[in-house]
């Protein structure tokens, strides 16, 4: 069979949601994944190993670094998950400017590896471009997406506390995780010092603090990214895929690299996709009434750039001149940390796969800075372990005994800042360079600019100030610079908008030039806000799927 009602390209967070929603609404759906199958629980090979079972005790080898030179630059290169990342040497890319691209080409994509932080956007975010006169306005507002946030939170399972903050709307939460005693103290002191204008809350994350049907609650092992044998956090495998498969309407095809969308220029519609089998190198075509493109922000743009090139040399969606432009991320790799005195008689039990969140305060509610937009922080307090230095101890019994006990409490926070959309932050096809399958690769040309640089100075300074106000001692800070992509929140390559002349997608995530093609991953984002974006991709995907099915039934697409 090669004809379906719908084709979904990609199986990560947004692809999984598209498959679930479309199949549950009755559409026969083909999910195409470019990597291998990766089965829930059975394929989580390391998830039940003990630390001593790892030959290199967490470290990657020189050979593994050679195979994955991009990921080797990052903290993602650890023994347990190194195989999860794409073998970079098979899939190179060109760096006009330094770019860290974190990729996982296998079923579930980065939904297995993600950080699970789940925050709603507010109208402060959706209205930001319009108010600042920057780039283009979002074609939607909070009220358009609010019911879809409700929908995806209820199904995915997001824990958190209700705070009543206008800039970070509350959601359909499972019970919040607990702050430890130092975090509670710091939160209270920040609230007092800043008279309630700054808020440090427990992180909102897609780990289950209560069981939901078919899934066990989080066991506080804090090794989510190896895959959870309990289904304790949201991933395609634990959540959307079982739901989609239960309909009997889903077909999953692994090893399927989509090379292009097939386009009927008379009807101005896509008719299907052309697929290269990554194992056999044979090509196949599949047909459908609608296509959801969820290949991840940069790869979704790659597919569009390779499609309908006989009509538009720049590819499907390029008529606006914006396809591949406006690349965004969240800039981080900076923060502050120090020591909390007292609490030597307190400790924790369990490993919380979550931290604290300091909610955006810059450029909100009358606050004015010398740059646009804002930032949040993630962090945690903990007692030091055996990794610490014990200055007065050298070698022998004393060293061993000291390190067998926990050390002092430390508290650290990492900032996540909004990166503005810039037309000249872009990706293009590099036709000179080919990947393992002979396909052209992406060329990355994006950087943080003056607005972000000013913001970074402020993020460090405010981080230090807040920790000091909270009684943290010996505060130090860092700013290691930020290559775009390293935030793992790539966005913007096919932005939504109100006008086909300045945007690639309309308000329902439809490609203006092919209304039966929907792009609902990070590619669609018109601005970046500073909240972790995955929850918003889920909500936009569910919303677009609902619209697509309605339009199909009406015969409009």
């Amino acid at each position, binding site marked *: 069979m090669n004809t379906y009602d719908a084709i979904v390209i990609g199986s990560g967070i947004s692809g999984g949601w598209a498959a679930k929603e479309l199949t549950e609404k009755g559409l026969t759906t083909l999910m195409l994944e470019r990597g291998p199958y990766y089965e829930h629980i059975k394929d989580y090979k390391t998830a*039940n190993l*003990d630390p*001593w079972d790892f*030959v*290199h*005790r*967490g*470290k990657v080898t*020189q*050979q593994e*670094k*050679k195979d994955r030179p991009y990921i*080797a*630059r*990052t*903290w993602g290169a*650890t023994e347990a998950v190194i195989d999860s990342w794409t073998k970079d040497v098979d899939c190179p890319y060109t*760096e006009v400017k*330094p770019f860290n691209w974190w990729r996982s080409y296998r079923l579930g994509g980065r939904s297995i590896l993600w*950080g699970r932080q789940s925050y709603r956007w507010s109208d402060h975010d959706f209205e930001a471009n319009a108010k600042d006169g920057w780039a283009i306005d979002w074609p939607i507002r909070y009220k358009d997406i609010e019911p879809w946030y409700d929908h995806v939170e209820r199904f995915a399972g997001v824990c958190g506390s209700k705070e009543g903050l206008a800039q970070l709307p509350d959601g359909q939460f499972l019970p919040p995780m*607990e702050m430890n*005693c130092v975090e*509670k103290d710091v939160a209270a002191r920040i609230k007092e010092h800043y008279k309630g204008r700054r808020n440090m809350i427990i992180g909102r994350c897609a780990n289950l603090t209560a069981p939901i049907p078919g899934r066990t609650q989080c*066991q*506080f*092992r*804090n*090794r989510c*990214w190896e895959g959870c044998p309990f289904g304790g956090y949201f991933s395609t495998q634990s959540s959307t895929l079982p739901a989609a498969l239960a309909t009997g309407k889903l077909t999953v095809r692994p090893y399927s690299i989509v090379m292009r969308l097939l386009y009927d220029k008379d009807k101005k519609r896509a008719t299907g996709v052309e697929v290269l089998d990554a194992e056999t190198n044979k090509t196949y075509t599949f047909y459908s009434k609608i296509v959801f493109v969820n290949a991840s922000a940069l790869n979704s743009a790659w597919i569009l750039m390779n499609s309908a090139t006989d009509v538009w040399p720049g590819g499907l969606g390029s008529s606006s001149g914006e396809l591949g432009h406006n690349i965004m991320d969240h800039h981080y*790799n900076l923060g502050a*940390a120090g020591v909390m005195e007292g609490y*030597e008689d*307190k*400790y*924790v*039990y*369990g*490993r*919380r*796969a979550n*931290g604290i969140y300091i909610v955006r305060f810059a450029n909100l509610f009358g606050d004015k800075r010398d740059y646009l937009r804002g930032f949040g922080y*993630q*962090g945690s307090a903990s007692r030091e*372990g055996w990794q610490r*230095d014990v200055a007065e101890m*050298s*070698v*022998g*019994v004393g060293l*061993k*005994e000291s390190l*067998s*006990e*926990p050390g002092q409490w*430390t508290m*650290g926070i*990492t900032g996540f800042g909004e990166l503005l959309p810039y037309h000249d932050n872009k990706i293009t096809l590099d036709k000179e360079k080919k990947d393992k399958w002979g396909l052209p690769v992406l060329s990355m040309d994006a950087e943080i600019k003056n607005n972000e640089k000013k913001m970074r100075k402020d993020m460090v300074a405010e981080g230090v100030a807040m920790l000091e106000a909270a009684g943290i001692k010996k505060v130090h800070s*860092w700013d*290691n*610079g930020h290559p775009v992509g390293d935030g793992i929140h790539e966005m913007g390559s096919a932005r939504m908008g109100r006008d086909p002349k300045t945007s690639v997608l309309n308000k329902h995530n439809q490609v203006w030039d092919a209304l039966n093609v929907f792009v609902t991953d990070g590619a669609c984002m018109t601005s970046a806000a500073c909240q972790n974006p995955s929850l918003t991709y889920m909500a936009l995907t569910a919303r677009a799927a609902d619209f697509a099915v309605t339009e199909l039934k009406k015969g409009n697409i």
Partner: protein
Amino acid sequence: MNRRDALARVGLLLGGTIIGAEAFLSGCTNAPEKKIGGAGTNFSTDDIAFFDEVAETILPATDTPGAKDAKVGQFMAIIVKDCYTEADQKVFIAGIQKLNDACKQKNNGKSFMDCTPEERTKLLIDLDKEQKDYTAKKKKDDPAHYFRMMKELTLWGYFTSEPGATKALRYVAVPGKYEGCIDYKKGDKAWATS
């Protein structure tokens, strides 16, 4: 492990970066060195016995197992061979000779293996002071001190081993819950994993 923990915990040992992991934290764009498993990294059983004794001197058996029980010597050999850069391998291998030379100088020509535990401890206290002084003064791109490597590998290998994690420390594979504020009294062991 997650993003919040990453910069705070992983890669940091003895208050510094894990040797060979500099690129890991700086996000620099250097390609890893080409050659893997450089000359002299197929360590002999004698080498491993030597590493075991160095490690045991750093973390000796007490009422809990020592580094030798945790097979730290073998761990050192594996990490140096598989994970160290060629430059770091050279420093480490040369360090075996340097350690013995220092030992002979202080102990009337006796090699490390021939020394008593007391003589070994005394020597390593001196070498630890030497590495701390060196580390404090060294420039960013200077190589690490060989004894810092040995000490770091010992701590890492021991506290992540089964005896280290379960006897010297406390380990619970599946905590099942999180409690953010429990009582602690001096002498209670630290958790093996975070």
